[in-house]
């Protein structure tokens, strides 16, 4: 067994760790967003600091995205790659029409739920989870 093949054995553990990291990075981003909004409303956070906080809070997500890409390309075996990719595809094909519907209803003046930035960030993450769960169910 060569080095490339041996990496696949621990793919599930790597995937679980990375998912935890992704959730943590998302939480940091959401907390940063919350602090920015509170700071802006309370007037105790100047615009430059809000900008800096927004950039810093999003940085862990960029690192997580890089690690996710590396895991997907190098560490997952072919079935786990398929499960993740189907989960991502599910989220994308569902998120776009949902977002379009929301925008159209809002433009038409119909009742729509008020969506804050955290809701907008969490929706695709939730859809990816659902998509991966459906793919796991299909293949196992």
């Amino acid at each position, binding site marked *: 067994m060569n080095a490339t093949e041996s990496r696949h054995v621990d793919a599930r553990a790597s995937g679980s760790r990375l998912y935890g990291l992704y959730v943590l990075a998302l939480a940091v981003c959401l907390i940063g967003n919350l602090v920015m909004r509170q700071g802006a409303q309370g007037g105790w956070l100047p615009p430059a600091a809000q900008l800096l906080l927004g950039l810093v809070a999003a940085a862990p997500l960029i690192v997580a995205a890089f690690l996710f890409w590396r895991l997907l390309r190098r560490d997952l075996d*072919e079935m786990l790659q398929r499960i993740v990719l189907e989960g991502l595809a599910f989220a994308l094909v569902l998120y776009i029409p949902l977002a379009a519907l929301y925008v159209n209803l809002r433009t038409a003046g119909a009742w729509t739920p008020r969506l804050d930035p955290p809701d907008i960030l969490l929706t695709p993450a939730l859809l990816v989870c659902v998509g991966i769960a459906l793919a796991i169910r299909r293949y196992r």
Partner: protein
Amino acid sequence: MKNALPVLRAERGWSQADLAERLGVSRQTVNSLERGRYDPSLPLAFRIARTFDRRIEDIFDPEG
């Protein structure tokens, strides 16, 4: 797709984890292959055939 993986593996006394390690995939993938829930790529099918010293068509039945 039906396949003879469980039989071939049992003949050798290997666990799913043993076979997974030999093939360089996860145990979950071996389980899905054996249950016919996942069809392998061509490179993985060749690795499986080499591992059991059989031809691909001796292991996998496309009509199944």
